[in-house]
């Protein structure tokens, strides 16, 4: 790190090394730590200049230089490490047993069911979930009442300001907090948890559970809004989903039926920073949930989830869900783990290529250490 870098580990560093580089994920880990950074309509904004040489915004940001290996060692059992998909205690295929949950959920409703359970069983006292307004602008909310959880089901395809709410809530005298997080958010939470600045130690002890979502990419809300307006006019939209790649489209469910938007057009709305994301399966969560894949085909799979358990806590929660009959389980096809590894490695490789293109240096990945074992593995896979 040169001298300039040393002096720019605060807001100025966020500005020059993250925002201006187009790397900001919108995770909002830097929001509500201070009054100078705000989230507004899908954008992280430096409202007032801050000249601190070191700041929490920079320390926790998932796009500032990060020692991934140190985080993995601190949070997971080294024996569980799988280079492509992170700590791994098991892969499951599940869905919510409650039909009503499934009806409102993105896929199998596993996340909703698990959060309800975690609140109910006292794993956590509050859960930070993503909601959205009628224009699909996400808003994060802290939920205490388990009956309110299902109201927040369904994926919001723009980034939710979840961590700004975590920052706000964790400062109050609340109990244990659970967060449903995208991979960038889970990474920021890991940085906060493992290496909090002294003032934040107490606050971070409240972070109990990270329920991760698989993530290919998120959409830029402003661009999405424009596209939806173009395609659906004034029709009322009930929901949207992005189908597996072979369908190559986004489905928009409106009051007058489903409208398909070709994936190439959706791709133009993807947040630029997602091209530089190293994580598909939310490796820094206790438990990660995504869409299911099986030979039965999408019509069946869309009602199920694939779940990776990463920590003991995650394992306990899933076991409890089985015991209480909250989740239904079915056998995971043999090939799924390999497919997941392949898909995840693919995202990592794209990330590294895109980062080195940006820096013009094959070994400079801005926030990722080129000596990281996973990086070395991915480079080796590529040959």
């Amino acid at each position, binding site marked *: 790190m040169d001298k300039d870098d040393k002096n720019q580990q605060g807001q100025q560093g966020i500005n020059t090394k993250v925002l201006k580089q187009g790397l900001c994920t919108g995770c909002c880990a830097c929001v509500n*730590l*201070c*009054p*100078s950074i*705000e989230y*507004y*309509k899908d*954008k992280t*904004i*430096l*409202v*007032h*200049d*801050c*000249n*601190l040489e070191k*700041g*929490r915004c920079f320390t926790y940001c998932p796009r500032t230089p990060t020692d991934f290996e140190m985080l993995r060692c601190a949070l997971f059992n080294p024996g569980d490490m799988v280079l492509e998909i992170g700590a791994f205690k098991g892969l499951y295929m599940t869905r919510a047993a409650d039909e009503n949950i499934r009806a409102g959920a993105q896929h199998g409703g596993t996340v909703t069911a698990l959060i309800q359970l975690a609140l109910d069983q006292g794993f956590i006292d509050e859960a930070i979930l993503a909601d959205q307004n009628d224009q699909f602008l996400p808003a994060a909310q802290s939920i205490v009442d388990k009956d309110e959880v299902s109201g927040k089901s369904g994926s919001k395809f723009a980034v939710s300001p979840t961590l700004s709410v975590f920052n706000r809530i964790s400062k109050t005298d609340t109990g244990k907090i659970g967060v449903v997080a995208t991979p960038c958010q889970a990474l920021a939470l890991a940085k906060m948890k493992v290496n909090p600045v002294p*003032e934040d130690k107490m606050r971070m002890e409240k972070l109990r559970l990270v329920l991760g979502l698989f993530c290919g990419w998120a959409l830029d809300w402003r661009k999405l809004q424009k596209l939806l307006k173009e395609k659906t006019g004034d029709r009322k939209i009930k929901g949207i989903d992005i189908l597996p790649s072979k369908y190559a489209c986004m489905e928009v469910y409106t009051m007058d039926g489903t409208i398909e938007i070709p994936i190439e057009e959706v791709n133009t709305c993807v947040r630029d920073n997602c091209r530089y994301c190293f994580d598909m399966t939310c490796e820094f969560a206790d438990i990660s949930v995504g869409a299911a894949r099986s030979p039965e085909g999408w019509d069946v799979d869309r009602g199920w989830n694939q779940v990776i358990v990463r920590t003991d806590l995650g394992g306990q929660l899933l076991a409890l869900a089985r015991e209480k009959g909250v989740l239904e389980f079915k056998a995971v096809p043999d090939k799924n783990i390999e497919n997941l590894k392949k898909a995840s490695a693919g995202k990592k490789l794209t990330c590294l290529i895109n980062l080195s293109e940006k820096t013009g240096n094959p070994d400079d990945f801005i926030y990722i250490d080129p000596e990281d074992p996973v990086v070395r593995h991915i480079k080796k896979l590529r040959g």
Partner: protein
Amino acid sequence: MSSILFENKKDFEALLMGNDAIARGALEAGVNVVTGYPGTPSSEIVEQLANVAGERNLYVEWSVNEKVALEVAAAGSYANLKSLCVMKQVGVNVAADSLLHIAEYGTRGPLVLVSCEDPGALSSTNEGDSRPYAKMMEFPLLEPGDFQEAKDMARWAFELSCDIRNIVMLRSVTRLSHASGNVIMGKLPKSIPEAIFEFSGTPMDQMKGAVLAFPTLVDSLRRRQHEKLSKAVAAFEESPFNTYTGPQKPELLIITSSVCNLYTREALTILNLWDRVGLLKLGTTWPLPSKLLEQHLSVCEKIFIVEEGTPFLEDNIKVMAAEKAKQVGIKTFFGRKDGTLPCVNELNPDLLIKGINHILGTSVQPVLDDYSAEAAQIIAAGVFNRELTFCPGCPHRASFWLIHTALKLDNRSGFLCGDIGCYGLGAGPCGFSTIKILQAMGSGIGMAGGFGKFDRFGMSQSVMAVCGDSTFFHAAMPALVNAVHNQSDMILVVLDNSGTAMTGFQPHPGSPAGAMGSKLPMLDIEKLCRAMDVRVEVSDPFDLKATRQILLEFLEDKGNPRVLILKQPCALSPIRKGRKMYEMAIDADRCLADHCGCNRLCTRVFKCPGLIWDTIKNKIQIDEVLCAGCGVCASICPTGAITAKKVR
């Protein structure tokens, strides 16, 4: 309300500020109608005369702008009254169109235009020089060279205007208007005016015909105007306000006017050169008294022209010297053009000493070049570094905080077009550097209206403009009308602090009373905007939450102009009576100082002078003396360490 200035005695001496001397001169001339628009360094003249409006039976008004001020004064003249119109240099530009036509036709009752100008731009955004208007529009120009002359020439300007029946301009500058000197007073006349506008005569009957600027009349009007000028020159040739001091055949002839007269005198005394150098001080600077100049030019080869502003005298004298080359011979000229004097900024005796050293080879050391830098350094050691900032409790600080935040959140590289008023400071740190364009009165809104039309050329930035309440009436209204009519995508924020704050709370059309103190109907900015059919919201800039919401909504909105009126009286406004709205206190436990993460937002960014960082306790503190009790800082502290308790 009587002060020594208005005492109805004669031949007594008093120490008067230049502007007071001009006001006294107008009274001695028997002025009836006084108009103006406030602007430093001119404002005191109208204010002083307003104070005796009742006593001296004057009509005094602060007009909506300088053009209207001149028109009201011209009406006075056409009604056979004695009229005075006062403005600062920039105002003459506003009034210029009417000025051209008044000068072309001429006047009936005397009409004197006083322009107080600001070389060095001490309180202006420019160094405008209005003297060329006199030449361009062909009317006489007077420039008093000391305080006595300020009074005497003001009075004489009315006589001259009466004699030649045309407008006369009297030009002062900051160092005359705002400095003081001894003045011997003349008597105040008894005048019983009878106002009537006559129109029974033929169009060319200046005193009795209709006042018409018709294309077919222009030729005759201009001939008549030139006759007036010739009459003025004849008077100037004899004028006691043009004086010469020095030897009969000087080595160097200095020609000067205005306060440069005083600087030159001081320099010549310091240099002890009165026996070698002659000083021709001109009080009548346009048209030039050619015989007088010929007489002086012919006895000296080296001519040094000393003036502030543009090289107005210099150019005109050079032209004259060329015309009279046969009689006066070849001259060497020194002045602003050849670099003997700097071509911008105010002059002073030191600059003159340097200039004379250069011409005559004398070697008296003026003040050292690095004097001011050195003095600043010495002073800095004992004086706190005070930034240019808004007063404690100034509503503008809150307004700019809000506009800055809204533009940032909007995230489209939006910018704010500024205007002329205290809020021009919005371009600096105390306004969070929000203003990015700042030029003339009303021009911010005009330009915002332009920027708001450029989406077809790919412009995607948000465009906002601010103006004050007085500025709104002065020049913003036509610009807003233009933006509305042309459907420009812009937002106007009117910073309504209930008065013309920067120049001293002169009333404007939105005020409940006029210059003379009597009650007048108040024009409502909100109603005016609504009548233009634009979206209008009114909010309190101290209510950060509500106002922020409106601004963000406005920024999301598209198409036609939107107007937000932010109402909150100036912290110094007389209507506040110095009362605090909130009693401010600190909850020291809540101020987390270096552990907060705010990095001292209160004293580093928001920076109200009422807030001080206690470096010993390392906590925020309220400066009880300075705090105006606006309560805004309580809303910006993220931990609630600053508390506000409502007073009353």
